[in-house]
């Protein structure tokens, strides 16, 4: 199925934004304003909801006319685009992910999507899931740089990688008996360790990235 790439689901949702001449500022500007204040770090509501690898929200005004020989065309509506690389449920569908979003980020979703046509609110879970799926487009092709692992698997793997790397660094040249004992201790510690917090494995880089360089 084109929405799935291995274990990862590529969710694309296009919700038409309310077109109300009386609204001031207009509904699309109200969405932009709310999104501008939303955290993009580990406090992001989409990070708090389970199963999100990456989420992106875009307000699409219109198609851009690039000049002749292109034909000038316009959309019938402005749209809110929501894209997410996420973990689907065991049945391969997106329902459980959407329910999790409603549960953990309902207030934010309502603040954003209340400017969209026909949005029922997050509190009615069944209606919310029906609405989101009605707005869903087939993703058809996407790339998720997550090594085909779920979010919990990725968090665990990063935790293990860091612990093992640190272990190697500090235990090189140790006598085999002691090394074995300490390694078994490391494994036990890791087994008992709680699931790392979302985005906790992020290493901050001093370098300015983005733009044309990346």
């Amino acid at each position, binding site marked *: 199925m084109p929405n799935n790439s291995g274990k990862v689901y590529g969710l694309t949702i296009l919700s038409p934004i309310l077109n109300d001449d009386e609204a001031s500022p207009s509904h699309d500007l109200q969405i932009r304003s709310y999104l501008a204040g939303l955290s993009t770090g580990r406090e992001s509501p989409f990070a708090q909801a389970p199963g999100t690898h990456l989420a992106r929200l875009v307000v699409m005004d219109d198609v851009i006319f690039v000049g002749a020989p292109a034909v000038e065309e316009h959309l019938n509506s402005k749209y809110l685009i929501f894209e997410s690389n996420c973990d689907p449920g065991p049945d391969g569908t997106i329902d459980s992910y959407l329910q999790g979003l409603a549960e953990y980020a309902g207030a934010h979703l309502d603040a954003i999507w209340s400017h969209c046509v026909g949005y029922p609110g997050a509190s009615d879970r069944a209606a919310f899931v029906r609405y989101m799926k009605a707005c869903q487009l087939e993703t058809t092709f996407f790339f998720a740089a997550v090594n085909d692992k779920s979010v919990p698997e990725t968090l665990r793997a990063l935790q293990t990688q860091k612990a093992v790397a640190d272990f*190697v*660094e500090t235990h090189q040249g140790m006598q085999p008996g002691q090394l074995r004992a300490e390694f078994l201790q490391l494994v036990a510690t890791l087994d008992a360790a709680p699931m790392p917090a979302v985005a906790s494995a992020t*290493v901050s880089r*001093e*370098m300015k*990235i983005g733009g044309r*360089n990346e």
Partner: protein
Amino acid sequence: MSKLNETDIQGFVLRGYNLPYGRYILLRFENPDRARALVSKLLPIITTGQRWDNGKPQSTVNIGFTHRGLAALALPDATLLSFPVEFQQGMKKRADILGDTGLNAPARWDDVWHGNDVHAWLGINGLTATALDDCCSQLRSLFAETRGAVELAAQDAVSNMVDGQQTGKEHFGYTDGFGNPDYLGIERNSQPGHGKQLPDGSWAPLATGELLLGYADEAGELPAAPIPHILASNGTFMVYRKLHQNLATFRSFLDEQSAVYGGGREKLAAKLIGRWRDGTPLELAPDAPDPSIVKDPQRSTNFTYGADGAGTRCPIGAHMRRAHPRDAFGFNGKLIDRRRITRRGQTYGRFVPEGELASDAEERGVVFMVLNANISRQFEFVQQQWIEYGNDAKQGNDKDPLMGNHGGHGKFVVQGDRSATNPPLVCAHLPSFVELRGGDYFFIPSMTALGMIAMKLVDPR
């Protein structure tokens, strides 16, 4: 494509002169008319790419301008604004993008870079110290005669000598200067491994537009260039970086780590860069240096990493494998063909052979110069993604072990196998072996463009 006009291209762009003595003079222009008069006087002495049928000249002269320098020459605003953003900004403003922070931050650079005064770079090379001095005297009399420029600083460089012989060795003892790319239309003693790899495994020159403005690049596009076209064509951009080398730190690192590394000191030195110190590629000779390979142009750069995915021969994070990954990222190397750079470099400071006392404080390093058509896509990408980051090489946040801006926090993994002489090793808390002491981005115009600048004929309309 037809043969390039070598008489229109500055010689420094087309070939490394391999002359033992160098001096890099940094100039400030004070008055556009007088500066143009100086450029006029310099024109007949600039060394072009014309071949040397009668042997090497006594000395060579080449010239480049910063964006501020071109403004000081009063080029039209419409031309000045048409240069790529990174060149307009200059290297100091790109520090955050390049990772030139901490020990490499502009505040720690040599005094000459602290203001925004550097307008031009003159690169002079000589066959002998006397020839170099004679040439510089001639240039300095032109500065005085035209009152066209003030000399801000002069950086001397000299190839390291071993037993009285000029060598290609830099201060850490590595033989340098193997892998510059070939470009279509540029006559050069080509050898396998210098260009790009084709699907059948053979090597071909890169598109001319990866080095020179005005020609198609590897994407079939013309590189972003200033207007008018004739100002840009046959020109290129140069990145100038003065790289200080902490020789004492490097040697004590080798001593400490080789005490716990079964491969020994020389192999560890080789693992950092990907070649034994004599230049033998680890991929071709993982166990010991082999001088016959170094001497053989059919072999010295003729290798790939595809059969060494685990990095047990050449570590995945080794300097050479990062800076020129060849086929290491798959797709027959296609991912790297637009990230190649031509390097010119010369050592400065006293060469201290192994076994003699060395200090970090002494002035010593490499004047590292990069030539590329697109600074952002080529040099800056390599610096940001492959030198100061490790993700493309699947080395996480690890930086280039030798060149990285570590500041005591670096890590380098030497992949190994079960043999006693090639064990794995994790080097942690790496110090900075190399520190940046300054530099900038320069436009290296063609001879035609230099003439236009000198005669005030640059017209963007």
